[in-house]
C-alpha cells in the first residue's frame, strides 16, 4: 500500500519533471542521479552535438574500479623483477643511469646512492610467465588475467601533485577527477546510486593521506562529484535517519513536504521547487538502496573465503573490494578505492609486507569474482600508485632494512578486464629498474586509454570553463594500442 502510494507520487513528480524538461528550463543541476536514461539517449542530435556524440565508438568497458595504492608502492618489490640490483647490492648508482633525474629534497643531499635489490624473491606465474614477487602470491595466480605495465611514468615527484595528476590529469588546481569526467560523459546506470563513488582504507605503513580534491568535480556540475562511502554508521554522509524516526514516519514527512512545497510552487512557479521535491525523493530511495548494497551478510562463504576474512570487517581494503564489486555490479560507473600507507622511505621490507598482505588476496579476488560473474569483460580494474620508488636506498642500507625514495621516471601498474589484453607484460625498464627502455606509458596516455575503453575519444570529452575547453588529458595523451584487445 505504502509502496503504491510512493510510486504514484513519484510518477506525478516524474511527469512534472519531464514537463519541466520539455519547457526547457534548466538552471538546476539535476544530473545523472536523477534520470539516468537521459544519458543513454543515443543518436539524438542535441546530445551528439554537445560532446561530439559520446560514446564515440563501441565501448569495451562499461565501468571502472580503480584500486589506488596511495603512497606509491615499490615496483622493485612487486612487479618489476631486477636481479641485477641484488648482484650490485650496496654499489653506487651509476651517474649515467641517473642522468638528469631531479631528486626529492629528501635524498638530493644524500652523499651516496647505494643500489638495493628486493628483499623478496620473485617467481614466474601463469602462461604469461610474468615475474611477480612473493609478496603478491594471489595476484600471481591471476597473472593470466592481468596486464602488467612496467613502463609507467609521471611528471610529479611528490605525493600531493602526483596523486592529483593521476586523478585529475593536472598537478595543480581544481580540475575534475577522472571519475567525474566519466560520470559527466556517461552518466549513471543506476538511478538510486551516484555514478562515482569513493572508498577509503588504510594500512599500517607510512601514509600520506588523501584529499577530497582527488574526487572533486572541479568545474563540472557537483552531481559528478565522487560520493564517499564510509564504513562508519552512515555509509553516505547524513544518510541515516535519526533514532526514533522510522521509514513510515519519514515517508509521511516527505509527503507533507511535497504538499507544502507544491503550494509554494503554485504561487511562485519556480521550477527549482519541483526539482527540490525530486531530490528529496531521490534521497529517500538512496536511504534504502545504499544500506542494501553495504550489506555483505548475504554473500556466500565461498566469496568470503575468496576475499579473505577481513572482507567482513567494514573499512578494510578487502571489505572495500567486495563493496566495489557490488557497487559496480549495480551500475556505478566509477568506483575509486584508495588504500593508504605505501610510502616506504625506510623500513621497507617490513612495512611493504604488511601493505601487500592488506591488498593481495582481495585485489585478486575482485578480478576473479568479476570474471566468475561474467562482468570482467565489461569492467576495467586498475591497480597502482602515484609513482615508483628509487632503486637505491634512502638513508642507511642494510640488506634486511632499507627504504626507497620517490621515483617518477619508471614504475608498474596493472589492469584487468574491460578490453585490456590479459596475461601480458607491457613496456620494459633497464636492468637497474630506473629508466624505461621500451614502450613508455605516461599518465596522459593512461587516461586516454581508460577513456578509450569506455568508448570515449579523450580529445572529444571536453568542458568549457572560464573560456577554455578542458579535457582530462589536457593537450596530450595517446591511447596505448598495444594493451587493448
Amino acid at each position, binding site marked *: 500500500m505504502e509502496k503504491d502510494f510512493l510510486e504514484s507520487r513519484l510518477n506525478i513528480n516524474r511527469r512534472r519533471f519531464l514537463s519541466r524538461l520539455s519547457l526547457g528550463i534548466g538552471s*538546476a543541476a539535476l544530473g545523472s542521479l536523477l534520470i539516468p536514461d537521459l544519458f543513454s539517449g543515443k543518436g539524438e542530435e542535441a546530445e551528439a552535438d554537445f560532446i561530439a556524440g559520446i560514446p564515440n565508438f563501441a565501448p569495451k568497458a562499461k565501468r571502472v574500479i580503480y584500486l589506488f595504492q596511495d603512497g606509491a608502492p615499490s615496483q622493485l618489490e612487486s612487479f618489476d623483477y631486477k636481479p641485477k640490483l641484488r648482484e650490485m647490492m650496496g654499489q653506487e648508482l651509476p651517474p649515467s643511469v641517473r642522468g638528469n633525474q631531479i631528486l626529492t629534497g629528501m635524498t638530493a643531499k644524500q652523499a651516496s646512492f647505494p643500489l638495493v635489490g628486493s628483499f623478496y624473491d620473485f617467481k614466474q606465474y601463469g602462461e604469461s610467465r610474468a615475474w611477480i614477487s612473493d609478496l603478491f602470491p594471489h595476484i600471481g595466480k591471476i597473472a593470466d588475467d592481468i596486464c602488467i605495465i612496467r613502463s609507467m611514468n609521471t611528471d610529479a615527484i611528490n605525493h600531493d601533485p602526483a596523486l592529483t595528476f593521476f586523478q585529475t590529469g593536472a598537478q595543480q588546481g581544481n580540475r575534475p577527477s577522472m571519475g567525474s569526467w566519466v560520470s559527466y560523459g556517461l552518466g549513471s546506470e543506476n538511478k538510486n546510486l551516484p555514478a562515482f563513488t569513493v572508498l577509503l582504507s588504510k594500512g599500517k605503513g607510512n601514509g600520506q593521506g588523501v584529499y577530497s580534491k582527488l574526487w572533486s568535480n572541479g568545474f563540472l556540475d557537483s552531481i559528478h562529484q565522487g560520493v564517499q562511502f564510509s564504513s562508519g554508521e552512515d555509509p553516505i554522509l547524513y544518510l541515516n535517519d535519526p533514532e*526514533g524516526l522510522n521509514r513510515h514516519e519519514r515517508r509521511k*514527512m516527505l509527503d507533507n513536504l511535497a504538499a507544502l512545497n507544491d503550494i509554494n510552487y503554485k504561487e511562485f512557479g519556480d521550477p527549482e521547487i519541483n526539482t527540490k521535491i525530486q531530490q528529496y525523493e531521490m534521497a529517500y530511495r538512496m536511504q534504502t538502496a545504499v544500506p542494501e548494497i553495504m550489506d555483505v551478510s548475504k554473500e556466500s562463504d565461498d566469496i568470503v573465503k575468496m576475499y579473505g576474512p577481513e572482507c567482513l570487517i567494514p573499512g578494510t581494503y578487502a571489505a572495500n573490494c567486495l563493496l566495489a564489486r557490488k557497487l559496480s555490479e549495480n551500475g556505478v560507473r566509477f568506483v575509486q578505492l584508495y588504500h593508504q600507507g605505501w610510502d616506504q622511505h625506510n623500513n621497507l621490507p617490513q612495512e611493504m609486507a604488511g601493505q601487500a598482505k592488506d591488498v593481495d588476496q582481495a585485489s585478486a579476488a575482485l578480478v576473479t569474482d568479476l570474471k566468475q560473474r561474467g562482468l570482467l569483460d565489461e569492467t576495467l580494474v586498475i591497480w597502482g600508485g602515484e609513482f615508483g620508488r628509487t632503486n637505491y636506498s634512502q638513508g642507511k642500507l642494510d640488506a634486511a632494512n632499507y627504504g626507497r625514495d620517490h621515483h617518477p621516471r619508471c614504475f608498474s601498474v596493472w589492469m584487468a578486464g574491460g578490453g585490456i589484453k590479459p596475461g601480458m607484460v607491457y613496456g620494459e625498464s633497464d636492468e637497474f629498474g630506473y629508466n624505461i627502455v621500451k614502450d613508455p606509458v605516461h599518465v596522459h596516455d593512461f587516461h586516454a586509454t581508460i577513456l578509450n575503453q569506455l568508448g570515449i575519444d579523450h580529445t572529444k570529452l571536453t568542458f568549457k570553463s*572560464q573560456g577554455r575547453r578542458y579535457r582530462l588529458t589536457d593537450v596530450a595523451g595517446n591511447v596505448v594500442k598495444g594493451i587493448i584487445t
Partner: protein
Amino acid sequence: MFRKLHLVWLLIAGCILYCLHACNSAGQQMDEERVPDTVSYNFNIRPILSDKCFKCHGPDAGHREADLRLDLPEIAYSALKDNPEAHALVPGDPSLSEVYRRISTKDTAEQMPPASSNLKKLSPFEVDLVKKWIKQGARYEKHWAFVAPRAHPVPQVKNTDWVKNPIDNFVLQKMEQKGFEPNAEADKERLLKRVSLDLTGLPPSLKMMDSFLADRSPDAYQKVVDQLMAAPQYGEKMALHWLDVSRYADSHGYQDDNYRSQWPWRDWVIHAFNENLPYDKFITWQLAGDQLPNATKEQILATAFNRNHKITEEGGVIDEEYRVSYVTDRTNTFGKAMLGVTLECAHCHDHKYDPFSQKEYYAVFAFFNSVKEVGLQSTVGGAETYAKRPMMQISNDDIKKVLKFINKQDTDKLIVSIMADSDKVRPTYILKRGNYDTHGDEVTAGTPKSILPFTGNYPKNRLGLSEWLFNKNNPLTARVFVNQVWQEFFGKGIVKSSGDFGMQGDLPSHPELLDWLSVDFRDHGWDMKRLVKQVVMSATYRQSAVVSPEKLKNDPDNILFARGPRNRLPAEFVRDLVLASSGLLNRKIGGPSVNPYQPPGLWENATSGRGQLATYKQVHGPDLYRRGMYTLIKRTVPPASLAIFDASNRDQCEVKRLRTNTPLQALVMLNDPTVLESARVLAAKLLHDNSQSKDKIIKAFRLVMCRHPQEKELAILTAYYNEELKSMTKADADKLLKVGEYPVPANADKVKLAAMMKVVDAMYNLEEAITKT
C-alpha cells in the same frame, strides 16, 4: 543531464537571448530568423570568431596556422601569406572573402573550423551573420571590456512611476523594448526576508518583522535597509564572498594539511566592510599595504590576502617549484579577482583568446615575485609553523590599541603570514611552458597593454600596481567589482561569467547599466555601502520573485531582471538561518575558527596522522552555534555539510559558486544534527509559550519562513502536529530528543516536544526555508 537541459533551454531561449544582445556566445547560435539590421562586431561576430577561429588564428603565436590572425583587422584585411591572391576579409564583399568561403563551403577538406579541431562548424545563422557583417564593412571594435566605461545618460522610460533610482531606468528601458513588464513589488514579508538575508546573511527577527509590517510610512523600507546595513552582521555577510575570492582557509592545504592562523585577516575583512573602507583602499591595502608610506599594522595585516594561498609542508619538495607556484597563485588571483580576466591562461603560452602575451603574464608575475619567502619553510609542526615568513606577530597590546577588531581571547602567541619584499628585486623570467626551472627572457614589472599600459610615474612595485588598478582609465576594476556585487544580490552578474570579462566570457546583459554603475561607483569615492544601498533600493531588486508562465517561457534565465531574485542561500547562510531562527545562534564576531558537529572519521580516514588537524576535535557549548563562516576549513577535507551546499573548498580564488540542488543536500537537511537540534530547541521554546498549538506553529513558521503561513499551509502543519501527537511513543520521543548537546528542559512533556520538533523540522526542510524569496 545538465547539458541536455542546457540545450533545450537554448533552443527555446534563443530568440529572446539574441534580440536582447544579451546572450552568451552559445545563445547566438539559436536564432534562425533574425539577423539584425546592423551587425555588431562585439556582440554578434566576435563571440563566433573567438569560439571557432581564434584558437588557430588568434593571439597565440605558438599555435597560429597559416600565419593568419582574424583578431586584428590589418592582418585579416591583407593578402593571405600562403595565397597572396586571396584575402581573409574583403570589407563589403563576402564573395571575395576567404573567411566566408571557408565557413560556408560544403567541401569538408576546405571547411573551417576543420574537423580535426573538434570544433563544431558554424550554424547557418552564424554564417549569415558573418556574411552580413562583411557586407557592412567588416568593421572591428575593440573588445568592450578593454574600453574604459563611460557614463551613459540615464535612459527615458514610459512607466516612470515604477522607477526608484537610475538602475531601474536602464532595466526598464530594456524590458519596454522587449514588451515585458516588471513584476509588482514583493510583499513586505518576503521583501524583508530577502533584504535581511542579502545584507546580513540572517533572517529578520520577529520584532523586526512586526515593526516593518506595522510601519506604513513611505520610507519604511529604507529604514530597515539602513538598520540592516548598520548591523555588524553586514560585514560578515559581505566578507563571505571576499573569503572565496581570497581563497581564505585555516590550513596550509597540501598533504599533511596542518593548521594555519590566518583568521585575524578574516576579522579585518569583516571590519573593513563594516567601516565601509572605500574599495580603492580596501584593495590597495591588501595588495600593497606594506608599501604604503608609514604603513600601519592594520595596513600590513591586510596584505595577508596574498598569503592565503596554499603552502606546502611536504618534506622533500623542490623549493623553487613551490615558491614559483605561490607567485603564480597571486598573479592568477589578481587577474581573476580584480581584473576579471583569465590571465592564468598566459602562464604557459600566449593567451589563446585574449590579447595577453606570455611575456605580459610574467610582467604581472614580477610584481609578486620579490616576496621574502621560500617554497618550503618548515614541515608540519607546532605553533611556530602556523604562519610562514614573512609574517607579523600580533600582540595582545596591538589588539588593545590598534587592531581592536581582532577577536582574540587568549594570551597565546599569534602570527599571521603577510607580504614583505626583499630589498633587492628578484629578477623575473618568462618560464617556458610554465616550468619553474626553464627560464626564458628576463622581464620587468608591467601590465597587459591591451587593458592599460603600465607607463608614467607608477613605482614598479605592488603599490604602483594598485595605482594602475585605480587609474581612471582602467577599464576593468570598477566593472568587475560592481558586477560581483550585482551577482551577490541578483544571483548572477550583469556579466554572467564574473571571472571572465575577456573574449570567451559572456557579454553584459545590460552594458550601459554596468558602465553607469561603474562610473558612478568610481566617482563617488569607491563607496561600497553606497553601491550596495543603490542596488537594494532599486525597484528592480524589490520586485516579487513570482515567475509567470510567460516570463518562464520567454526569459527563463531572468536576463531582463523582470522579476526579483529567488535563489537558494549559500551554504554558510543555510546553517545560519537554521541556528538563528531557533535562537541557538551565537552572534560572536570573528576569532579562531571552530569545529562544530561533523560526521565521525572524515579527517581521520584521510590523514597522514601528522599535525594538529589529524583528528577532529569537536567544540562544545556556545562555540557549536557559531555562524557557518567560522567553521574551520581544512582544505583537504573541507566541512562536509558546507561542501555539499557548494561552499568553496578555498583551493584557489573563486568569484562565483556553483548553485546546485542535489539529493545529498536533502540528506543534510533531513539528518544533520544541527538542523535536528535546532528544531528541537525551537520546539522547546514554543512549548514554553503560553499559547495554542496553532499559534506555536504560526510563530515557528514566521521564524523559519519569515512570513505568516497561509490557511492551507497552517492546516497541513497543524494536522501533521496532531497526527504526530497521537502516534508518537514515549520511547521514540526519548530517542528523537537525544540529538545535539543543548539541554532538553527538565520538565518538558517529551511526546509533545518531539511532535513539535518534527513539525519544525519539516519547516526547515521546505524549499522556501533556505531560499531567498
